[in-house]
């Protein structure tokens, strides 16, 4: 056996300290640049201190742009080709207001994020009609339309010439003052964004990045959060673009062209997308490389950028957000330390599960207004759904009574998972209705159904693999209670005790700080079940809860579920292949066959039903033939 607790915690604390140290060094460095540049010029007369300060200004603006891009790329998992367009919109806001309406540039700068956010919101509404790849392509189209407007509308934007000759207030005409001004604005924006990433809002973004489907089923409105972060990122890109217009005193259409997105992407990858400050540090490296190489070797510079992106994509397994982990493991290998990342759970933690503890946890709510036992909680009425010619669920009627433990059984392809997907909103029914606690929830989106009080454990394990075990539960609690709209506060400190208690109750407390994806299959199933309990739902749907668990784990897990359901007035609806689990847990059993309900009754009635025996016998025969 591997000793666990100390190993799992120690490096975490060290890396947190390391990160704060890096941040402090970064800030001190940024503040010291003008005096350092002056010193450099005194020591070496060939050097222009002004030029170095100018470079530092552009680096710091790039840092803001890249960190805002990383809100999408690294924190939410979105690739947008329109971010350069919002950066350009910010720059044009300042330049046009000055050039056409003689508005002072600082007023323009204050308006830049608002205009960029407005454009981001409107175009984001269109872009987020699509997901993933199609979303990326749609942002490309948006970016090209905005570029075409800037490039071709000579009368207003100045066309391909752009707008030049912006005048700054006297105080900012000095390079050093301008640098500190830009640095102050960027610093403020970074602080705001940092707060955002640690807030419950940021927790929702992380959940979406890790597993969109799971995020929905814990009650997160994925589209709304994506639109929000898209708009927020656009606003900060607008600030960055506005600052560009201020210190370069110009705006030009190429800023909006879609290939310009290479800059924030490369910078974010250089510094590491899994960290907040990484892209900001990457911006300084990029600016330095750019200045050293691109004058003399412009094409080689492109190749270098490509090589960096390709290197990160190919050499960092599991994507670039794993980059810090790669460094940690390389460092550990270098120091011949034992690698804490390789600690794996043995799967026996369920042994220590204690249902009694769960019962005492407030967060796992008892039903707020418990229905009288025996009243119908979920009514499925003539529900149908077909795929092409296949009637996966056909005219199904089902009533789940409050406080019941209701099993759905049936051979493979009987339509059990489809029925669950219809109830939880993952699929929309062709016809029929679903009524839950008196509310018609037919065809509602998954997050609304989750918030209405239906929790779900999936057949395939659906957890947030790179989040810690503790965060998996905390974020579920946050999301389900609607707290993730808060853009301030620290998500990791909320529901900590409740989540810890729940972990202890399912025997997983010792793994609290490990990434959930590193646990054994059985333990991941336990997390899956714990998430569905953490939601504090009135009805919990378990789709083959013990799939892949050992017989021992299965017994323990089901005992836990039974006990919690009983004490907390939870209603259970589950499907399961293991007949021992079914007959040991259920009080009502519905048998499905070929998309239809075959029969329903108590376990004893169902067991004695000859039709049921025939269906199962038939399946056995088929399997024998195969």
């Amino acid at each position, binding site marked *: 056996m591997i000793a666990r607790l100390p190993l799992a915690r120690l490096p975490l604390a060290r890396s947190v300290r390391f990160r704060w140290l890096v941040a402090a060094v970064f800030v001190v460095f940024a503040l010291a640049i003008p005096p350092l540049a002056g010193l450099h010029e005194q020591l070496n007369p060939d050097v222009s201190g002004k030029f170095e300060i100018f470079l530092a200004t552009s680096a710091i603006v790039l840092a803001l742009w890249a960190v805002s891009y990383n809100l999408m*790329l690294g924190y939410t*998992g*979105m*690739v947008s080709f329109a971010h350069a367009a919002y950066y350009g919109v910010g720059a044009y806001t300042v330049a046009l207001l000055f050039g056409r309406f003689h508005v002072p540039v600082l007023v323009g700068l204050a308006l830049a994020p608002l205009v960029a956010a407005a454009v981001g919101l409107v175009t984001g509404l*269109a872009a987020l*009609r*699509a*997901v*993933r*790849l*199609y979303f*990326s*392509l*749609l942002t*490309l*189209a*948006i970016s*090209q*339309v905005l570029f*075409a*407007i800037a490039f*071709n*509308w*000579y009368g207003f934007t100045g066309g391909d010439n752009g707008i030049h000759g912006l005048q700054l207030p006297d105080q900012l005409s000095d390079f050093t003052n301008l640098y500190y001004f830009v640095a102050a604005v960027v610093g403020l924006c970074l602080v705001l964004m940092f707060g955002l990433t640690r807030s419950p809002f940021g927790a929702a973004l992380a959940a979406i990045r890790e597993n969109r489907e799971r995020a929905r089923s814990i009650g997160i409105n994925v589209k709304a959060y994506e639109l929000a972060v898209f708009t927020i990122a656009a606003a900060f890109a607008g600030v960055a673009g506005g600052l560009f217009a201020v210190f370069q005193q110009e705006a030009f259409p190429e800023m909006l062209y*879609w*290939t310009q997105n*290479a800059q924030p*992407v490369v910078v974010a*990858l250089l510094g590491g997308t899994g960290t907040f400050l990484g892209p900001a540090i990457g911006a300084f490296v990029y600016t330095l490389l750019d200045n050293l190489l691109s004058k003399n070797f*412009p*094409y*080689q*510079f*492109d*190749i270098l*950028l*490509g*090589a*960096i*992106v*390709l290197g*990160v*994509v*190919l050499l960092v397994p599991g*994507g*670039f957000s794993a980059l810090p982990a790669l460094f940690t493991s390389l460092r550990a290998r270098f120091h011949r330390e034992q690698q804490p990342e390789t600690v794996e759970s043995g799967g026996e933690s369920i042994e220590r599960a204690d249902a009694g503890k769960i019962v005492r946890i407030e967060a796992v709510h008892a039903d707020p207004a418990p229905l009288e036992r025996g009243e119908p909680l979920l009514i499925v009425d003539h529900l149908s759904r077909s795929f092409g010619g296949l009637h996966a669920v056909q005219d199904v009627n089902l009533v789940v009574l409050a406080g019941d433990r209701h099993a759905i059984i049936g051979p493979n392809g009987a339509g059990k998972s489809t029925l669950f997907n219809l109830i939880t909103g993952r699929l929309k029914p062709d016809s029929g209705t679903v009524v839950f606690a008196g509310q018609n929830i037919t065809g509602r989106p998954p997050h609304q159904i989750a918030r209405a009080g239906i929790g779900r454990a999936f057949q395939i394990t659906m957890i947030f693999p790179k989040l810690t075990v503790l965060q998996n539960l905390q974020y579920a609690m946050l999301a389900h209670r609607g707290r993730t709209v808060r853009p301030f506060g620290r998500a990791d400190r909320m529901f900590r005790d409740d989540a810890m208690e729940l972990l202890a109750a399912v025997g997983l407390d010792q793994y609290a700080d490990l990434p959930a994806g590193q646990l054994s299959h059985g333990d991941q199933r336990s997390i899956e079940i714990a998430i569905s309990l953490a939601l504090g739902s009135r009805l919990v749907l378990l789709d083959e809860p013990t799939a892949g668990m050992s017989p021992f784990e299965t017994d323990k897990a089901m005992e836990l579920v039974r006990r919690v359901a009983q004490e907390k007035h939870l209603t259970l609806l589950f499907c399961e292949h293991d007949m021992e689990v079914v007959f040991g847990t259920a009080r009502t059993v519905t048998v499905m066959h070929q998309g239809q309900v075959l029969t329903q009754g108590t376990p004893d009635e169902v067991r004695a039903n000859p039709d049921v025996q025939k269906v199962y016998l038939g399946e056995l025969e088929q399997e024998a033939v195969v």
Partner: protein
Amino acid sequence: MNPAQLLLFAVGGLSNAAYLFIVAAGLSLVFGALRVINMAHGSLYMIAAFVTVVVAEKLGLAFGFWGALVAALILTGVVGAVIEIVVLRRVYREEHLVQLLGTYALTLIIAGLVRIVFGPNYRTMRPPAIFSGSLSVAGFRYSVYSFVMIAAAILIAAGVYLMLYRTALGRNIRAAVSDSELLSASGVNVARLFTVVFVIGACLAALGGVIVAPSQAVGSSMDTDVLVLAFAISVIGGLGSIIGSLVGSVIVGEVYSFGLENSYTNQFALAFVFIIMAAVLIVRPWGLFGTPEQ
């Protein structure tokens, strides 16, 4: 606008549509089977166009174009095979954003290499002797080469169709489109099939590049120029659908041609294309002839 003018712009639009179809069909074919958006597709097209101009110059007008065609197809095919084996194979199982970034990196690398090898200047070439000249219809002159491009696109469309629906390879590709895991379970070497599909896609990009070279200036920005149009076409027609590419390229080619014609709209001809693309994506995210992704 009188009918003669209408015809002029319609033919102009079709000759745009011709080379765009050839390029977009390759992009779409690769996406259909491999589920990867190849951002480097335009780069392969650009390589072929540059190779065509250079080889045609070396070999002279009589045989230059044909020699260039062979050289461009071979070189681009080899580059395509290398890209598939070295890069794409390692990202098939990753998320879309990793694949986008990986092939995006290739566009940066290839653009840099092309500028080093061929220089930053625009180059032009004339069509091969038998396709040069012009003919006059209803008072307007049409270059013969426009019709050659349209004919070539029709031939290639027919070729791709026959390949997909009349050969064993085509059957395997269509099977890979619907379920590559099942195909692999039935004993087909899917890794090799994917390489072949990618090389075919690369060769389509190359054909587009070869065919476009005598009709346009060949320059180092043509990779992204064609890529965004090929995206627009694939998205309008539906990624993965060859018929969709055909319809999409006619829409894009004609909109572009007629948009340029009108003096009020000519500044925004390209914007129209993307507005149509956005409109299609919003109403029908999987395109006119595509199928929704699971």
